[in-house]
């Protein structure tokens, strides 16, 4: 299915979304990387040692969620823009997702944005908490967005609402 649509299926996602017990403990990385391709920059990017070393560069990334602290270094490093950090403990009602965002202008903290799912459909409104620009201008910026918890497994992109009445 993913090969035909470009959208991971529920089954694909079930493999990378951690069990509830881990989700309640704090932020965790979700690696939406389901196809064997020659790629491994997520491994050196993770200073916590949570991404296991690759035996074969074509292997899928394997994450030790006990070591993952949700820092988001892998989000900025992944050339496939396939990694997201989800924090379901952000507040009573909201989850926080750190997502890669390579568009200009970058959203400002406090800004209200549209939250889009994996097919680009708007599912809810969100609030930008932080925009991390990275070391140099070529790094992938990471935007932290808070929105209602129920959508934390579906929201993967944002749309700015500037200029929209």
């Amino acid at each position, binding site marked *: 299915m*993913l*090969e*035909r*649509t*470009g*959208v*991971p299926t529920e089954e694909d996602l079930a493999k990378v979304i951690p069990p509830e017990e881990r989700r309640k403990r704090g932020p965790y990385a979700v690696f*939406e*990387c*389901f*196809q*064997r*391709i*020659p*790629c*491994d*920059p997520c491994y*050196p*990017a993770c200073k916590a040692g949570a991404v296991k070393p*690759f035996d*074969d*560069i*074509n292997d899928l990334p394997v994450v030790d969620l006990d070591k993952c602290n949700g820092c988001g270094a892998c989000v900025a*490093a*992944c*050339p*496939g*823009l*396939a990694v997201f950090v989800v924090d379901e403990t952000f507040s009573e009602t909201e989850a926080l997702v750190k997502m890669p965002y*390579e*568009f*200009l202008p970058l959203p400002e903290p406090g800004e209200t944005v549209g939250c*889009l*799912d*994996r*097919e*680009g*459909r708007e599912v809810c409104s969100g609030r930008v908490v932080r925009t991390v620009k990275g070391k140099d201008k*070529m790094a*992938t910026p990471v935007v932290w967005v808070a929105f209602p918890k129920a959508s934390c497994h579906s929201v*993967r*992109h944002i749309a700015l609402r500037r200029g929209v009445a």
Partner: protein
Amino acid sequence: MRETEIAVVGAGPAGLCAALAAASCGAAVTLIDREERPGGQLVKQTHKFFGSERQDAGTRGIDIGRRLSERAMSHPGIRTMLECTALGYYADGVLCLEQNERFIKLKVKRMIVATGASERMLAFPNNDLPGIYGAGAVQTLMNVHGVRPGDRVLMVGAGNIGLIVSYQLAQAGVKVAAVVEALPKIGGYAVHASKIRRLGIPILTSHSVKEAHGKEVLEGVTVWRLDPGWRGIPGTEMRFDVDVMCLAVGLSPLTELLWQAGCEMKYVAELGGHVATRDDNLETTVKGIFVAGDASGVEEASSAMVGGRLAGYAAAASLGYCPDFETKKKQALWELAELRAGPTGEKIRKGLAALRGEAC
């Protein structure tokens, strides 16, 4: 007559790596490119590369191109000739060049052909309307010259180039109406496909262009679904009102120089068309002529860089440089095998086996 030990034709990822490898062993290299700056297709690759740290994974193509170009331009062993076109190679080792409307003869001991590839065209009614571009041209307009190609684009081809250029169009604020792919599956990496789906861009697999519309310029495109025999299914037509259609339907190796030099050529569909038969060192059937990069078979830039490096060392070693060639060769072959090992490398593996005359 001017002389050089190793001429490298083409200063893209393969040619740059070939020149740097050969020069690092002490060979005198002349690097030739018809553009005004080196880098080849890297100059417009604004996305981050895959591969591993050894191949600069996670670095954007333009940065890799800039870095390699600077190293090549400042290397005392490399003479760079830009805006210079290779016209022909003759058996006595003379490479004929054109630069500033002047004809130049260069006596070479070895030649590495890293000329790259050209974009394929697609046959459909009105395919000559202005507004119909190759994906490479669109990338050059946007990423090199900063020009928006239009307002609304239909992308044809869901290989990595089609997916990446769609993403870059969206980054430039251009609306991408859809990506159309004749195959039943997306050919490019799933992560690239997911990236553009998130933006709301549909990908229509098993669909192709029926015809383009417009009087003076492109005004719209009709696409339709294909049956398993690749025939359009009447009644499934969809019209997109777009002012740009971007074709990313594959590349063919640029091999004129190899044909003309008399290298044995073989048609291998998986490698993009006719390519030169060669040995492990990337040396063709004409002694002293090596191939690297897309000219030797269309592939990803990371493999082109490793292949270029191998050809550079091999050419240098054949002139008596590079004493530890066997170690360097082993390393390069290992890296290539690794890059081609996964399912996305299957096509290349098949193509290379066919080229060697092995069944796969």
